[in-house]
Structures are given as structure tokens and as C-alpha cells.
């Protein structure tokens, strides 16, 4: 490991900031263990746009807007913004939907998984094992020629569309037109002061764009390169920062029962996060990384983000999302449908070696 390598320090800083702000945002008003949760924020934002009727889950989360715009500003200022796309667009849209299915069955994205674990929520261990297993299976797929195909530069500039959509959401957040919904009760009514949320989002978006930090990327690199990989060190920095802040603020409550926003259906936690891990490897990053890539002009990641919005609406409208009471039948069916989708995708997007003569 080269300690003089600037990238090592960038990745470590990204991990530290993500872990620290993940806890701090909870202290400042976001729901318990949900200081940062891309899937919860997606569901909240989809609700605010009127895409689902759950009146407890409707809020335009400024953090989400900040992630994309922070990445756009960072990549633009360093001439890294490149409009690109064209790699299996519809499968990526579907992958976005199923990412949300997996997250909603576990109750949280991979970032929230680590935040839950860092707060002592031992029920998330099932999800953690599932995430590792999913990433491992995805890597095996790669080794066997499964790939969605290469992207290409897009002269039309479709990469600007997603940052533009998020800039519009920021405008909606400030202007608050009558058709945007804001919950007055429930978890969406719990939020930090918006300048803190937006500022944190912008900062994290910029740092994540520079460092390419991602939770499933950390797991992937740890499996491929072991403990020497920078991403793994970033993941460790994330976890250490979150644990330290939780302990310091009296939010560390180790145990299996009575944990906020958690259930004890371990098998389904495992499968939900397994689906997220596998899908993330196939599409090149966890839900957070997709937002960052969309911010730097990747239209393919932009389609995943649109799929996540759609998925966020569907998991609430169709009763797929798990609650503390457990995983509903609809959620179990949706996870299995997700695995069916990813298996068919692997079959269809596999480059097979030429037969031996």
C-alpha cells in the first residue's frame, strides 16, 4: 500500500465523511439509523412527487439532490463530466426497480446497512452476509463473461438530463408548488434542517465523485484484492467513523430486538441484500454510486436512477416494502422476481467462448 498515493486519502476521506454524516444527519433530525439511506430517500422523493399514496413517506430529500448536483459540479469543474450511455438501457431501468425492491425488503440501502450495523443493530448481519454473497456471485458472473456491454460517448448530451431533473427538484423544494407533497407525520416528517441536508449532500456528492467510493465497490475490491484495496480501507473508515459517533452520542444499542426500522426475517434480509449486491455488480455500483455517476454525465446510471424512482413508488404502492413486522408476501414475490430477472439477464448478456473445433 502506497501511503503517498492521493487516491488512498481521498477514498478514506470519502468513507469517513459518509460514515460521520450518516450518523450526524440522524442526530440533526433524520430518522434513527437513516441519516443517509438512498432507497428511503428515493421512496420519500417519489412520494413527494405524488408517485405513491403513503402519506408518511413524502418528502423531497435535499441530500439526494445534493449527491447528484455535487457530483455534477465536481466533475464539471475538473473537466470530468462526459455525456455517455447506450449500454443496455432497458435492463438498467429494470435493474433500478429491483434495486429498490431488494433495499425495501431489507429496509435500507447498503449505506444504511452499515449505519444500522454501526448502531448495534445485529438484525442487519443477515443483510450484510447477503450483500457479500450477492457481490461474490456477481463477480463470478463477470468471470464467466456476463456483461451488459460497453458505453459510448454520446454527442447529444443526454448525460445532462439527470442533473437537470435534480436541479428542477431543487427548484421545487425551494418554491414548494402545491402539487409537491410533504408529510406532516411519519418518518418523512423527520428531517434535518434543509441547509444541513443539502450541504451534506453536495459535499458527499463531490467527494464521492472524486474518490469513486461505493459500498458494494468496497466489498467487490475486498473480495478481489483483499485488505490492501483502497475501497476496502474506505469502507473500514466509514464503519469506524459511524461506530465512534454512535458511541459518543449514546446511540449505540447492540441487540437483536427493538431496533429502529428493522425486522427479524433474516432469510429475506439476506436475499434482499443479495439481490442488491448482485445487481450492483452487474450495473457498476450501489444505488449511491449510480446517483454519483448520473451526476457526472452517465446516462446509463441515469436510467438506473429513473428506475429507482419508479421502484420507490412501486414498493410503497404495491405493499412490497418490509416493516418492523416483517416482510409481506408481496415483498417476497418481488425479490424472487428480481432474482429471475437477473438470472435471465445473465443468460442473455453473456459472451460465450467460441466452441472448440
Amino acid at each position, binding site marked *: 500500500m502506497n501511503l503517498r498515493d492521493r487516491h488512498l486519502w481521498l477514498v478514506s476521506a470519502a468513507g469517513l465523511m459518509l460514515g460521520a454524516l450518516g450518523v450526524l444527519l440522524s442526530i440533526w433530525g433524520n430518522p*434513527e*439509523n437513516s441519516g443517509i439511506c438512498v432507497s428511503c430517500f428515493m421512496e420519500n422523493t417519489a412520494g413527494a412527487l*405524488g408517485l405513491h399514496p403513503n402519506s408518511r413517506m413524502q418528502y423531497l430529500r435535499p441530500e439526494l439532490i445534493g449527491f447528484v448536483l455535487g457530483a455534477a459540479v465536481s466533475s464539471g469543474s475538473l473537466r470530468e463530466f462526459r455525456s455517455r450511455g447506450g449500454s443496455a438501457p432497458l435492463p438498467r431501468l429494470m435493474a433500478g426497480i429491483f434495486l429498490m425492491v431488494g433495499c425495501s425488503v431489507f429496509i435500507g440501502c447498503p449505506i444504511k446497512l452499515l449505519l444500522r450495523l454501526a448502531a448495534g443493530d445485529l438484525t442487519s448481519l443477515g443483510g450484510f452476509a447477503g450483500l457479500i454473497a450477492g457481490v461474490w456471485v456477481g463477480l463470478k458472473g463477470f468471470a464467466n463473461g456476463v456483461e451488459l456491454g460497453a458505453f459510448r460517448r454520446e454527442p447529444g448530451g443526454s448525460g445532462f438530463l439527470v442533473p437537470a431533473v435534480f436541479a428542477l427538484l431543487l427548484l421545487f423544494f425551494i418554491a414548494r408548488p*402545491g402539487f409537491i407533497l410533504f408529510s406532516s*407525520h411519519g418518518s418523512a416528517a423527520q428531517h434535518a434542517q434543509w441547509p444541513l441536508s443539502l450541504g451534506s449532500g453536495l459535499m458527499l456528492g463531490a467527494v464521492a465523485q472524486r474518490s469513486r467510493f461505493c459500498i458494494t465497490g468496497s466489498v467487490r475490491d475486498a473480495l478481489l484484492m483483499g485488505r490492501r484495496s483502497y475501497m476496502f480501507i474506505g469502507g473500514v473508515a466509514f464503519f469506524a467513523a459511524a461506530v465512534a459517533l454512535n458511541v459518543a452520542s449514546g446511540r449505540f444499542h447492540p441487540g437483536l430486538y427493538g431496533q*429502529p426500522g*428493522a425486522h427479524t426475517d433474516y432469510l429475506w434480509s439476506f436475499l434482499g441484500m443479495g439481490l442488491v449486491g448482485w445487481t450492483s455488480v452487474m450495473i457498476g455500483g450501489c444505488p449511491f454510486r449510480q446517483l454519483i455517476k448520473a451526476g457526472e454525465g452517465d446516462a446509463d446510471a441515469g436510467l438506473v436512477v429513473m428506475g429507482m424512482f419508479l421502484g420507490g413508488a412501486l414498493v410503497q404502492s404495491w405493499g412490497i*416494502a418490509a416493516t418492523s*413486522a416483517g416482510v409481506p408476501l408481496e415483498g417476497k414475490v418481488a425479490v424472487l422476481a428480481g432474482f429471475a430477472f437477473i438470472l435471465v439477464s445473465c443468460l442473455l448478456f453473456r459472451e460465450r467462448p467460441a466452441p472448440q473445433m
Partner: protein
Amino acid sequence: MLTDGYDKWLCFLLVVTLIALGVLLSGTGARKVGPAPDKALEREIAYQSQLNFLKKLYEPVESLRRTGNLQAALFKLDELARTYPNEAYGLILKGEILYRMGALEEAVACYVRGVRLNGDYVDWKTPLSRRAELQKVADEGLRLLGDKARANPENRSLAAALKNVYYLRSRLAGGCD
């Protein structure tokens, strides 16, 4: 970029469209079409109407409970449950009455059913909030039912009651559901 007349036309039309949008949003146009419906206000009105309806519907039960006539209050609740079987308000009321009668396991089961139907009862901010009572029941349940369940590990009904207590504690702890 502006290589020919077609490009220039497109740019011209874009500028005209943006100006028209600006005019519409600045209020000159908006005043003519009248105010847009405010969904937040509509929802608040619907919520308040629902609250008033529930209070009126369950007033006979509340009055029987206030006078200490708990058995009659339970009968009245059962009568109402035939018309509104999945109303969380009735289930929470039933939980409160059963708790006052000392039937802790049954009370917890009713509270859980109510909270699963409507999470507003665990929130601090809502007019429906029963958070303080739920916290008290969950703490007491953990203490009493936890001890009993540990002493009788084979007893399935005790295990189910304890699971209900864990659910209540999880909801009271917060989180994103």
C-alpha cells in the same frame, strides 16, 4: 453550433418558449388561470375530517370507559368492529381498556394490530399519538412477559406475546417504516 438557418430557428423558438414559461411562472399568467389546488391543504382537511369522524364514532366507548364501565365499553367496541373491522382507532381503544383490566398480553396484541394499520399512534407529532401509553405498555411487557417467557420457553403464546412487545419497541425506536 449555429451552422445553418434551421439551427437559428430552433434557438429562436427555444428562447420564445423560455420567455413564455417565465411569463407564466412570474404570475402574470398565473393570476388569470386562478390558484392551483393545494394538495397539502386538501390532505389536512381530509385528515381532520377523519379525526372528527373517529372521535364521534367512538364517543360512546370513550364515555363508558371514563365512567369505569369497562365491560360495557368492550361490548360496544365489538359492536362497532362488526361495521369497521380494520379500524386502528378501535383497536387502540380496545388495547387501552384491556390494559386497564390487567390483560397485558391481549392489550399488547391489540396495540400491535392498531399500530400496524396506522403508524400515527407511535408518532409524537400527530393528534392520534398514543406514544406515552405505548411506551409504558412496551416497557412493562418486556419486563413481565420477558421474565415469564424465559421461565417457560415452551409456551408458544408467551413467545408470540413477547414478539409483539419487540415489535412495539422497534416501532417506538423510530426508523424508516
